[in-house]
């Protein structure tokens, strides 16, 4: 095939880089500016006031950041472990059973979060978990588990089961096989699944809104209320903070989503 000329490729690369970075850079600059009125291209005054919450634990943004982090870490942990076992069992199915099971596991991913929230609210309120951290955590785990189950179903679809058989033939029991063979082999996918669950939890808005009933305040909700109140600088600060953990996690986990193609594609 005829080689693509270098210049358009460089142009495309620059356009993609600008498109990816510019909106985020704008948020960063906005978060450290005090006054920045139209049509100025750069802020008239710089300030660290929007970031002062880092030194003052009492700030609303700080507590919502803590809640978001606790939710995402717990949901990431729980969904990666549960997803491992669910995905493993689904991958062992064959034929229509496997397709049916994958379709079922796809439901929490495909159903709109708002529909999921309204459906879940009843059972969580009845069980006394509405408006509480534990209820919101459970709600976050539902879609996160869908993603991690599909992820592990993909991983186990190409898993060499003979390794486990070999260990069993050498006298290892089921627990030993899991602890000494399967888990060490799946250390990296487990980290990636944790990152996936973490990211899914970080992104939840309607679930937190309806299940948390305004009593569980996370950073995405705080961001939206800042926008409603016209506090663009604080909204930008919250946006920057929200972007840092996923960015770091994706880099650390080596782009966890890359494995998703096994199932999705």
């Amino acid at each position, binding site marked *: *095939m005829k080689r*693509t000329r*270098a210049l358009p*490729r*460089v142009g*495309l*690369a620059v356009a*993609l*880089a600008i498109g*990816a*970075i*510019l*909106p*985020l850079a*704008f*948020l960063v600059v*906005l978060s450290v500016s005090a006054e920045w009125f139209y*049509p100025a*291209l750069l802020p008239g005054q710089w300030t660290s006031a929007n970031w002062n919450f880092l030194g003052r634990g009492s700030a609303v943004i700080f507590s919502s950041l803590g809640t978001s982090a606790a939710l995402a870490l717990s949901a990431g942990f729980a969904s990666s472990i549960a997803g491992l076992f*669910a995905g493993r*069992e689904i991958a*062992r*199915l064959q034929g229509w*059973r496997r*397709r*049916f099971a994958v*379709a*079922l596991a796809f*439901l*929490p*991913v*495909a*159903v*709109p*979060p*708002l*529909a999921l929230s*309204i*459906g879940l609210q009843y*059972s969580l309120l009845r069980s006394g978990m509405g408006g509480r951290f534990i209820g919101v955590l459970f709600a976050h785990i539902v879609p996160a*588990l869908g993603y991690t*189950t599909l992820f592990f179903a993909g991983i186990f*679809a190409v898993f*060499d*089961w*003979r390794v486990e*058989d070999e260990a069993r033939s050498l006298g290892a029991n089921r627990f030993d096989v899991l602890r000494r063979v399967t888990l060490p082999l799946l250390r990296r996918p487990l980290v990636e699944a944790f990152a996936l669950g973490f990211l899914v939890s970080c992104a939840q*808005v309607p679930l937190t809104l*309806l299940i948390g009933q305004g009593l569980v305040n996370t950073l995405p909700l705080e*961001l*939206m209320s800042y*926008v409603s109140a016209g506090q663009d600088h604080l909204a930008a600060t919250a946006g920057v903070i*929200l*972007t840092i953990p*996923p960015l770091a*996690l994706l880099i650390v986990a080596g782009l966890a*989503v*890359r494995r998703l193609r096994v199932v*999705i*594609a």
Partner: protein
Amino acid sequence: MENPDPREPEVKGLLAAILVAGPVLVGLVYSLLGSFSVVGPGATGFSLRHIQVVLADSTTWWGTLWTVWIALASTTLATVFAMGTAVALRGERGVDRFARLAAVMPLAVPHVVAGLGALLVLSQSGLLARLAFAANLQTSPSDMPVLTQDRYGIGLILALTWKELPFLALIAFSVIARRGPALEETARSLGAGALRTFRAATLPVLWRGLLPSSIAVFTFVAGNYEVAALLAPSSPLALPLLTMERYTDSALGVRGEAFVLVLLAMLVSLCGVAAHEWTANKVETGE
């Protein structure tokens, strides 16, 4: 890989899937009962009232059509850009690698932040308007076309395209790297020129590989709440916003209508799931 132990009880796999989908299924049943006014806020016993009110309301249909338009437009744009990017940047040179990295970078940005970014960049006094002013293209914010909370959802479409492009580009990069070269080589060896090779080999491979993911993106985008809450207009009201409005209405009797809207949204999603499974199966079997 084939299951090496056929005696392994298949019930465990199905049970695992049911447990994963359980909360959604429970929610589905609850919403179904709520639609018939059997349970939920303002329930009055079995009645078709909520269904009749929602289905007779033009707001429902405009909202649904508008939501489908937004999802269709942003998914199409993201798919086309992803395909173009994958074809143009398939090389192994530094510039290609850098461009591929830049293309997938927004993957890490949460949707709510993408919505905020779009709001601040595209609004009439946003970054784009400031750049236009600096370039003497406008003299006041009102010269800037309305791109946020606009009737056609331009800002919303741009934000969702920006957010979904990285995921589709990632899939497209992978598809073209795994399946492209061999087919293209075959096409070339049969005498096909560059354009013919692209049309007969590259494009079909990319299309088939991307289709399941594009359907997944469409389904996701159609149900997204937070970006719509930041960028969608109040009329027509996007389906997720309409549902939330009804569900949080101070009049308990109106809240039941949200269940019908939930079922409508779930129907769109289920169509997406069915289409996804069908196309994924087609791709898997090479049909």
